[in-house]
């Protein structure tokens, strides 16, 4: 048994060992090790300095998932046990293990039962004396090629993690679109793992394409599915099963030490903007007034670069959330949904103001970019481009910088805007 190599120390782990021994004969185990996992997805449910949630998907079911991990440089593998649940409308099973009590700013190795490959992840640092970098975007996949392309640009940034603000696979909570999810996870497996095996964690928010919409189901001849399963508008059939964070009802906060908080919000995709969510947002922001870097991330933009200023949920976001951003010191918010690149001027209390919040968006990671409003003629747009892009964020100490690359890696914008260097003209 390979298990003798592992540092086992708890009763539950012993139980798993026994179970494993009972379930698999030696030859079965060997066969099992050759098997490929279908998907691998890392995120956080709590403290990104000391925890990591690891999801992987396989085609088998009914087993307690186990993985082995160690800090790079350590001799002893540790074992961790999680739980499994079904990938909805799929043959796949989602295995989920959360590792806790990890050391901040460290690289860990891990190995899944099903594969002999050793993967790695990094816990987030205790402080940001050195720069921390992440990539933001959304609206990730109407075809895999585009998603792969943007993923590769994101990896050039060597990100500590990625945050996607909704409209992920465009499966529309419709089981007939399950291949969209498979493709989406394939893209992550193929392009968001470094050559050295480091898996980049991803934080997601919910968007309109994660939820059911009955008129759409009717249009595509799928209304019977809704009737069969009792689906209502905005039911998210896949989202909460596929992702450990955010939990139902689709908003939550991740605190990175005392230096950064990422607030994931739900712009009416099964949870109204107005009501408990806004109350929660206010208390969450007020408790984090002294955090240097507070980034709200949500799907429908307060300041749309493509759609009408007064459509969708935009007016509600402006009425209920942006005043809270102003009040509690948010400097930048990430918006999506419109399929274009945009940067607003700093906006406070609904007017351009040096002390305001800059809104970056609008979700064109792996989707067809749309025609934008004329930035010159739109008071709230400083820059708007019809282009697929990623937003590279660097935070260090109390300072932030944003570098925007298009799908081919060209620099399309930055904030603050630093001069172009002209060497000895």
């Amino acid at each position, binding site marked *: 048994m390979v298990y003798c190599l592992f540092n086992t120390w708890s009763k539950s782990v012993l139980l798993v060992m026994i179970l494993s021994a009972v379930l698999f004969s030696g030859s079965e185990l060997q066969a099992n090790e050759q098997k490929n996992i279908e998907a691998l997805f890392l995120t956080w449910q709590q403290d990104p300095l000391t925890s990591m949630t690891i999801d992987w998907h396989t085609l088998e079911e009914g087993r307690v998932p186990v993985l082995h991990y160690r800090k790079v440089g350590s001799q002893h593998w540790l074992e961790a046990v999680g739980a499994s649940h079904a990938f909805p409308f799929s043959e796949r099973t989602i295995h989920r293990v959360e590792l806790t009590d990890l050391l901040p700013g460290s690289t860990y190795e891990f190995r899944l039962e099903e594969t002999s490959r050793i993967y790695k992840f990094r816990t987030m640092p205790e402080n940001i004396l050195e720069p921390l970098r992440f990539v933001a975007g959304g609206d990730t996949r109407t075809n895999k090629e585009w998603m792969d392309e943007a993923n590769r640009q994101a990896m050039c940034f060597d990100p500590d993690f990625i945050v996607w603000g909704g409209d992920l696979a465009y499966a529309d909570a419709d089981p007939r679109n399950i291949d969209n999810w498979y493709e989406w996870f394939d893209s992550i497996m193929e392009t968001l793992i470094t050559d050295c095996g480091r898996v980049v964690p991803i934080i997601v928010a919910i968007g309109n394409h994660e939820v059911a919409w009955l008129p759409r189901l009717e249009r595509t001849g799928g209304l019977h599915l809704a009737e069969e399963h009792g689906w209502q508008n905005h039911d998210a059939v896949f989202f909460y099963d596929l992702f450990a964070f955010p939990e139902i009802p689709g908003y939550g906060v991740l605190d990175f030490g005392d*230096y950064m908080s990422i607030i994931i919000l739900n712009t009416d995709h099964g949870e109204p903007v107005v009501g408990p969510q806004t109350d929660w947002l206010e208390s969450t922001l007020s408790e984090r007034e002294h955090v240097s870097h507070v980034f709200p991330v949500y799907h429908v933009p307060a300041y749309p670069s493509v759609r009408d200023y007064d459509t969708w949920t935009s007016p509600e976001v402006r009425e209920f959330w942006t005043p809270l951003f102003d009040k509690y010191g948010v400097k930048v918010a990430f918006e999506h949904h419109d399929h274009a690149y945009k940067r607003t001027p700093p906006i406070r209390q609904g007017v*351009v103001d040096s002390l305001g919040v800059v809104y970056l968006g609008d979700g064109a990671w792996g989707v067809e970019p749309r025609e934008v409003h004329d930035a010159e003629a739109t008071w709230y747009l400083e820059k708007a481009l019809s282009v697929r892009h990623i937003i590279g964020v660097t935070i*260090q100490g109390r300072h932030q910088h944003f570098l925007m690359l298009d799908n081919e890696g060209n620099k399309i914008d930055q904030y603050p805007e*630093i001069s172009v260097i002209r060497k000895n003209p």
Partner: protein
Amino acid sequence: MRGKFLVKISGVVMLAFLCMFSIAADTVFKPDGLFLTWQRDPLTTMTIDWNSEEDCEALVEYRKLGEEGYWLQNTGESFPFPYSERTIHRVELSSLAPGTTYEFRFGADSEVYRFRTMPENLVRPLRIAVGGDTRHNQEWMEATNRQATNLYVDFIVWGGDLAYADGREDRIDRWYEWFDANMNTLITAEGRVIPVVLGIGNHEVQGGYYSRHEEYEANDTWRAQIAPYFYALFAFPGQPGYNVLDFGDYLSIVMLDTDHSNPVEGTQTEWLEAVLEERKDVPHLIPVYHVPAYPGHRDFEGSTSRRVRELWVPLFEKYGVKAAFENHDHVYKRTHPILNGEINANGIVYLGDGAWGVEPRSGHNPDEVWYLKERISVHHLILLTLQGQHQHFLTIDSEGNVIDAYPERTFLEE
């Protein structure tokens, strides 16, 4: 000495008309020195100094760029350039429009120059070249000046040790070189003159520090006596040698005097606390001074450095300063963020240490000095970009190479 100055001033008045006629019709008038700064609101004013050996009238003609037709006029004052045949003419223009380019000239026969008033807000980036210790020789000063001009900066900030004349009559040529360097390199191809906001350093003062003068008393007469060029040549900071410049509601530059013509402790520290307290909601509150709290080369226990750490740094921390600019040590340095005397990501980053146009020193090794994150022995300027609530620092050497950035850049940007 004072008497001699007075005689010259009356001479200016008498000769005012002669200047205009003394220039031949086919020559274009160019001053010997041209220096733009602010004494107040940089959104709506501009102080124009020029010096010449001819006793011209202190009169500037100006108009918005693109407005053809008549020129507006404004008059000012003339002062003697200490120990020199030159006269300093100073005209302050006010009630200007923010974020606007103006043309100006010194009469019909003069070269036409431009300046830009500062913007109303920080929706667009404001770019400032920051440094100090500007001139061991004119060539080095011009090289770094040229980088500032290439970057189209809105203005320059120099935290002391300008011409290295030490307040001495026999070193007047250093000032001439200093003004020459600015005439040669701080005017863009379009004719825009880059304004400079500056402070005092030890090389502006006889003996370097007020404490070298046993009889010193903290008054205008003594300060002007021990730093004769500084107070005569520059409208800002003016007496008493420290001052604050408020750019709308978005930026305040607090220019301080580290024991050169004023003690750090006492009146100046009290003034500093009041100034910072009134500006605690300004997103960009930027102190600039000569002797570093966190030296890149010299001893950490130097007495002025210690006083700055004891008396000023706690005020910076209390009132929301995010970055401070230091000079004097002739290296490039960037500290870790520091709070309460310790490294802390919520602290203040100190950038310096004044090597614009002087021989760089070896400096401390960042691996051996707890507070240093970066130290490079090279001529440099620090490009400070302000936009909205955000600040960015890019350090450029005198050849235009990027040598550091904060926040630090990825290889993508290199």
